[in-house]
């Protein structure tokens, strides 16, 4: 099998840029949300549809990003 329908898009969650990547392998959709800088994966979700995988990955990323504290420099 091959990775198909690979896509990336950028959005902002809780004030942070997030990159959402999704692709399909056979019948399964995989989505990953990363924090762009430095690009660490925040969530990886597999689901039956692209929408479900991305929605869950975004929800998890939002939850983690909401905990990030900004210090006064």
């Amino acid at each position, binding site marked *: 099998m091959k*990775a*198909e329908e690979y896509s990336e898009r950028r959005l902002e969650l809780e004030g942070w840029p997030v990159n959402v990547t999704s692709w399909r*392998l056979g019948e399964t959709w995989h989505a990953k949300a990363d924090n762009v800088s*430095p*690009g660490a994966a925040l969530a990886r979700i*597999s689901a039956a549809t692209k929408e479900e995988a991305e929605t869950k990955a975004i929800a998890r990323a939002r939850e983690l990003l909401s905990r990030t504290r900004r*210090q006064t420099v």
Partner: protein
Amino acid sequence: MYNVDMAAYAHPEVLVTTQWVADHSADPNVRVVEIDVDTKAYDEGHVPGAIAWAWTTQLSDTLTRDILSKEQFERLANEAGVSNSTTLVLYGDNNNWFAAWAFWQAKIYGHQDVRLMDGGRKKWLAEGRELSTDVPAIRPASGYKASAPDLSLRALLPQVQDAQRHHTAALVDVRSPQEFSGEILAPPGLPETCQRGGHIPLARSIPWNKAANQDGTFKSLDELRQLYGGEGVDGSKPVIAYCRIGERSSHTWFVLKYLLGYANVRNYDGSWTEWGNLVGAPVERGAAAAAGQG
């Protein structure tokens, strides 16, 4: 699509293309290994025939905070069916962060032929290449002999302190600008692992991802020379790269050592998780100064 002339790098033999891996992953003398931040990525699908190494349990000592010992590295290689003459091809997610970490350890223990797949897992997926969810059965080897650790590739705390106090090496902070300034104590969304934010005084801020193209491949030799040389990191003096836990700085270490060919480059794997927790260690806060002003 980036058309980088890989042959121009100082050591082009340590880098292979995704096409090379597609053509050679089944060769008997080639072992392809995926190393991810999150091992779940491998389970979603990987290069056919590739095995996985988990950085937290297989590439780190699980008791002491340390890299593998010589004996542990030999065991890892043997379990992976790797001999001293195997071509070890490493790749992973996040633009090869932990693949570069594994590469660094393989070089510390003297593995001759180890290479990174340029662009890593991201490029393989984006190109719509073949994936497998099968874990290959590996026949273990038994005779792997690692060299004594080459500690010229690694910076431990005393060397970093010496570099900071006496300017004996250029310190390169490869974290994000917000981590460098102290605005955040860890990358957004990740656990904080330090008591203080900021950077080591005199360090230059050159985020690791400036060395990578959008597709995950490394930038060209000229672009890399400009990037690091423009910050005064030109190979004329020793370099120590650091990040938070040493994996992003492995990526930069690889660039400086093997793509630019700087002779003396060390990875400080203690990184900010060590420095930012030290009692009494000097810390600087604020954004990076322009080159030449720091």
